[in-house]
Structure formats: C-alpha cells, structure tokens
C-alpha cells in the first residue's frame, strides 16, 4: 500500500501545527496503520467512563428512561421513596455501575435530581446542580494540578445533562428557561420531551417547534452546539440532529410481545407503545446520540471546552485562595452583547446573539 509523504523543514517547532510541505514518495508498506489497533487495545484495557445527569420534575420518567437507555436496572429501587413526602430540598444522588458489552468496559455514573422543581418556591433550585457540576470540575482540576499525579485521573465530570421537559404542549416554562440558560454554559445539555405518549404526532411537532423557538430566543445552546462543528460532514450530521431536538421520548423497562416479537414498551388499554419504534417515539434517536455515535464527542467537548472554561475561570480568581462555602457563583447569563467571563473560549459574539 503506497502512501504519500510530505516533507517540511521546521526546526524545533513545538507550537506550529501547519508545516510547509512538499511531496515525496513512500514506497511500500511501513505499518503505521497498526497504531490504530494499538490504540484500540489500550482503550479497551483501561475501559471507558461516562457520566450522565438527568434533571426534571418528579414523575416524568427519568429513572425509567435511564433504565431503558442502558437496558438494565440502573436504579435498584427508586432513589426517593415515591410514596413518601417529597424531599424538602433538592438532593442529588448518583450511582455508579460497570457495564460490559463485547469486551468494552464502561463505568457509568448516573446522577439523579429528585426534588427539582417540586417546591412551591423554586428560586435558585439550579444552584445545587451547578455546584455539583463545578465540584466535579474542581476535583479534576485538583488532581491535575498535583505535583505527583496519577496515571489516569478518574473522570467524574458530568458529560451530558438530559433535561426532561414536561409534555404540556405549549412552550417552555420560565423554570425550564432559567435552568437551561445557566446550564448550557457549563455542561452539554440535551432537552427531551418526557412522557411523549400523551401527545399526538401533530402536537409533538408543534411543541417541538415552539421549544426550538424558545431556545433560540433565549440564546440557549444545546448539544450538539453549532459552533463546535468541525467540518461539513459533522455539520450535516449535526444539523439533522438539531432539527429533531428536543426528542419526544417514552421510557419503558417492561417487555411485551408484539407480533411475536419481544419489545420494550408501555402497555395501555388502547395499545402498546413500542419504545424502540421510530413511528411511536424518538427514543432510538436519543440512544443513538448519547451512546452509539456521540459519546466520545460528548466527553471531548466536556474536557476541551467546559472544563477548560472552568479552569480559566478558577485560575483567574487568584483572590479566592481557599475553598469555602459558595466559592463558585456563576452569574446568570443575561442578554449580554459582550462575552462575559464565563463564556466559552470558542463561542463568538455572533453566536451569542443569534442563538444556537
């Protein structure tokens, strides 16, 4: 397999990534390709980590959705006793599991937020969540900044936050908008329409359109963010996804028999809603996005953009020498015309004004 090699003379250049080139021939096979296999073997040996957070009012089917996504009982029992009184304050609970599929080991951490949006006064209910997310960044930063570092820093940073929108059919509520505004700046957010089996297909489309308008109007960038598209292929793929966000999903962890096949679904008096049937709900799209095609991308954006933003923010706060309660206060993103401190490195001013 003859390849081509280009040559450039560039002494000691450690920062340049675009050398001058001129071509010369590489005769025959060398074996550089084998590095891909080496990479794979190493990755499979160390295993992967993925942290997902689900946010939404209680009763929207978050735990069921997580169980459906990973096809297992992630939550052994419901994290909060559903029959008891609702918690007075917002509590975050996370659970970690190791799952394996075809030799690939994945350490999955799911963080649930029971009590979100359940109180009478929900002011600042996003603060514990923001604090939790920033806590994880802080842990990672502390590990990274040590003199004697570990080989592999355990990654507990939240890679994706799935926000469950109740299926009112109208538009995003003020709570949703406030929360999404704040969160999309620190973490990848994907909104989904929960319990979509209560909406007809037309209602779904109208709701979806309305939500997209609301997101645009308020300058909320959900994953996949337009500004991180690397090339035209990416853009085309992500545009298709962006058209369909928010996905209308239904979660189910019981199996029923339909036409002789065993499918996951919800059985009601008027029919069985098949979770994995694209005609019924858009769960497969969500699953494909989160797991099958964009998992690595989610981790990359968290590491290269959100974590770096946090780090810049933190290292610039040289007047805060010791950690105390409330040491990170993220100012709420208003309709700014100039990028503030919390802005992403790569988000330009136009993006802010145009929305995602």
């Amino acid at each position, binding site marked *: 397999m003859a390849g081509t090699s280009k040559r450039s003379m560039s002494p000691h250049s450690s920062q*340049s990534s675009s050398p001058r080139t001129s071509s010369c021939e590489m005769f025959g096979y060398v074996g550089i390709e084998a590095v891909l296999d080496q990479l794979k073997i190493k990755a499979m040996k160390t295993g992967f980590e993925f942290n997902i957070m689900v946010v939404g009012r209680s009763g929207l089917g978050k735990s069921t959705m997580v169980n459906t996504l990973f096809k297992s009982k992630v939550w052994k029992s419901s994290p909060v006793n559903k029959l008891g009184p609702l918690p007075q304050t917002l509590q975050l609970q996370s659970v970690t599991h190791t799952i394996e599929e075809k030799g690939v080991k994945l350490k999955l951490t799911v963080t649930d937020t029971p009590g979100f949006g359940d109180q009478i006064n929900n002011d600042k209910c996003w603060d514990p969540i923001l604090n939790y997310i920033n806590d994880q960044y802080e*842990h990672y930063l502390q590990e990274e900044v040590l003199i004697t570092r570990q080989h592999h820093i355990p990654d507990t940073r939240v890679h994706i936050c799935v926000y469950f929108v109740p299926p009112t059919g109208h538009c995003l509520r003020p709570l949703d908008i406030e929360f999404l505004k704040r969160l999309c700046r620190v973490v990848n957010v994907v909104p989904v329409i929960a319990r979509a089996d209560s909406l007809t297909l037309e209602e779904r489309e109208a709701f979806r359109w309305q939500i997209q308008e609301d997101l645009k109007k308020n300058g909320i960038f959900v994953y996949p963010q337009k500004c991180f598209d690397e090339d035209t292929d990416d853009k085309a793929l992500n545009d298709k996804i962006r058209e369909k966000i928010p996905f209308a999903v239904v979660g189910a962890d019981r199996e029923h028999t339909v036409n002789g096949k065993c499918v996951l679904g919800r059985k009601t008096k008027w029919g069985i809603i098949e979770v994995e049937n694209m005609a019924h709900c858009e769960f497969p799209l969500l699953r494909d996005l989160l797991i099958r095609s964009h998992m690595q991308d989610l981790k990359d954006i968290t590491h290269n953009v959100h974590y770096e933003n946090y780090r810049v923010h933190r290292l610039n706060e040289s007047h805060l020498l010791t950690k105390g309660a409330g040491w990170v206060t993220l100012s709420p993103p208003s309709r700014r015309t100039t990028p503030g401190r919390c802005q992403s490195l790569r988000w330009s001013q136009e993006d802010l004004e145009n929305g995602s």
Partner: protein
Amino acid sequence: MTSSDVARHTVYQALGGIKTCSTSQAGKEEKTDDIPRCLTINGHVGFESLPDQLVNRSIQQGFCFNILCVGETGIGKSTLIDTLFNTNFDDFESSHFHPNVRLKAQMYELQESSVRLKLTVVNTVGFGDQINKEESYQPIVDYIDAQFEAYLQEELKIKRSLFNYHDSRIHACLYFISPTGHSLKTLDLLTMKSLDSKVNIIPVIAKADTISKTELQKFKIKLMSELVSNGVQIYQFPTDDETTSQINSSMNGHLPFAVVGSMEEVKLGNKMVKARQYPWGIVQVENENHCDFVKLREMLICTNMEDLREQTHTRHYELYRRCKLEEMGFKDVSPENKPVSLQEAYEIKRHEFYGERQRKEEEMKQMFVHRVKEKEAIMKEAERELQAKFEHLKRLHQEERMKLEEKRRCLEEEIIAFTKKKAASDLLQNQSLNASGQCEERKGS
C-alpha cells in the same frame, strides 16, 4: 454478576451549600473499598462502538511521533530512518568538523491509508567527532528538556489549547552503537546513562553487516550485561497485554537489534529487494537471517508506537514535571502536612515576580536615561566639530576669492596697458607708413 450490593449513593444537601457525603464521590480513598457494582444488561445497548469512536477522533486529529537518533557521524542514522519509513528523506551527509554537537530536527508528514502521521526526526550532528567529548551529551539532554519544558509551559497556561498542541516531546531514542564487536564505548555509556530517565532508549547496533554471526551473539550479550551492570534503563517492550506480551517478550531477548539500512535495490531472483551489494554477497535488509531490521520496524512502529508515546507522557514527562515544579518551589503538602493550595503558591510567586519586574523596569529606565545622555553629549561634540570645520572651510574660501580678485585686477591693468601700447604702436606704424608713402611719391616724381 453482582456479588454484594455496593452501589454508592452520594447525597448533597442544598441547604447553604453544605456538603454531607456518605461516601466520597471521587477521591483516593474510594479506590480500595468502593468498587462500582457490575450491572448485567439485557439487550444491545450499543456502546461497543466506543473504541471506534475514539479511533475516529484520533484519525481526525492525526498522530505525531518524534524519534531522536543519537550516534556518531556516518554511522548510518539517516539511512536507517529512510529505510524504516520506506522513503527518501533527502538528508545531506554532514561534515566531521563541527566544533560541538548540534541537534537538527526535521518534520515530515506521512500518510498511510487513513492514518496521518507527523513524524519528527531529530539527528545529532557532530556527535563523537570532537577531540574533547566531555560536552557531547549535554546538548541532547538540553534538547529533550526543552521539549518537556515547552509542553509544561503550555499545560500551565491559563488559557491553553492542549488538544491541538503539536507534541514535540521525544518518544523514542535510537542509540546507534558502533559495531566494534568488543564493548560499549565510554561516551556511549555516559550518554545513555544521562538519557535513560528522560526518554525511551532503544539501542541498536549499526552497520551490522560488518560483524559475523558468532561475534554478534557475544557482542549482544556483552552489551546487555554492561548496560545492566551500569544501571542503564533501556526501553523494555511491554508484556502486560496478552495480545502482544508473547511477541514483545521474545523481542526483548533480541535486544539490542543489529540493523542494516539501505534504500538501494538489488535484483535477487526475480524480485527487487533492498540490500547492500558486496563482492562477496548481498546483505538483504528485510531478511531476518541477515539482520534484525524487520524486528526493529515491527517493534518500533507496528506494535509499540502507542506504548512509546504513553510511556513518554506518563513516565518521563511526569518525572520532569515533578522535578521542575518542586524546583520552582511548589509542593503538594506544606510543612504542617496540610495540602497546599496551588493558588497560594501562585499568588506568592506572582508577587515575587511583580516585585522583580518592577525593579528591573526601574533599572532599565535609568540605564536608558543614562545612555540617552551619553549619546546626546557625543552628538553635541560632533556638531561642534562640524561647525568648526565649516568655519575653516569658509575662511579658506574667502582667501581664495580675494586672491583671485587680486589676480583679476592685475590682469585688467595689464590689459589696459597692453591696449595703450598697441594704440601707440599703431599710431607709430601709421606715421611711418605715411612717411614712406611720401618718400615713394617724391622718388617717383
């Protein structure tokens, strides 16, 4: 299968931001007792494509690999690299008369099917040529440290972009040993000893076609025992992964590889092979009976390139970073055994630095003013001199002029005198002419 229910729950309470953790979410203590529960999944989830996603991202980013070749001039470094990567990198023969050792880095972009590799080859120019070789290995150590330093600086920046940083740290060092057949030279030993904690050293016996098979065996054994007895840590191919452990451990037994490099092709049978042709035979580069070149290529590129890069990053770079940060005065644990915040350390350093800078600024300002004054004085001098010259010239000029005036006056007087004389002589001539004319008339009549 789950043995015991060791699912971890972490509860954060929102009241006033106080955290109460039942078990810590992330931290060192969890590693030993909190093992995440193994979950069985009933069905196809789909994250088996994760390694492929990772590989795709790496392909997009491209790979980079940096090799350092250390060896005497003319030992065959460039030829071997050419042969390894099957291309003509077009390097010139270097002279033997360099006053000191220099490192020359050249960057190439190779592509094989979908893999793009940015290869940097660093050569030592003039190694082993000097009469006094005491300073020979220092430039090499400095170069390696400089690359680590550049990476460290990038990592310590506040606004950094590590993901598209071109990694220039040396991943592998090929050390070329002369095929004397006896033992390591002192220079080799010293150089390898100073490099072994900074880079992955792979010793190779160069120009192996000058040693016979039996001598080669003895030479290899001698070399390895010398390296071991002097405590030089050369790179051992990793044997912890089942897919590669067998081949790697057998290769470890063949170290150091005896290699022959050549890009010239010789016809053998009905094929063209890379070989060196001698009157007594043909040494084939890719024949395992003739030399270990194929083994080297296997090990360096096909099997362990990723491991070399990882070792460089996790072992050598971390060691450098630790030493450098400790040298700069950062510590993980302060004297009272409390974890020191990096912020404090940064703050202190920053104040010191600002103080220094202020002082330096003052110094430079004063020096500047002083210099300006000096320059002004000099220029004034020059101006004065110039003025004096000008005056002098002016005076000369005046004198010249006056002289010329004099001369002119004289000349004019002469002219007047001359015209007078001329007028007088004319008159005389006329009178004489008239007188002779009358005489003629009188004679005639």
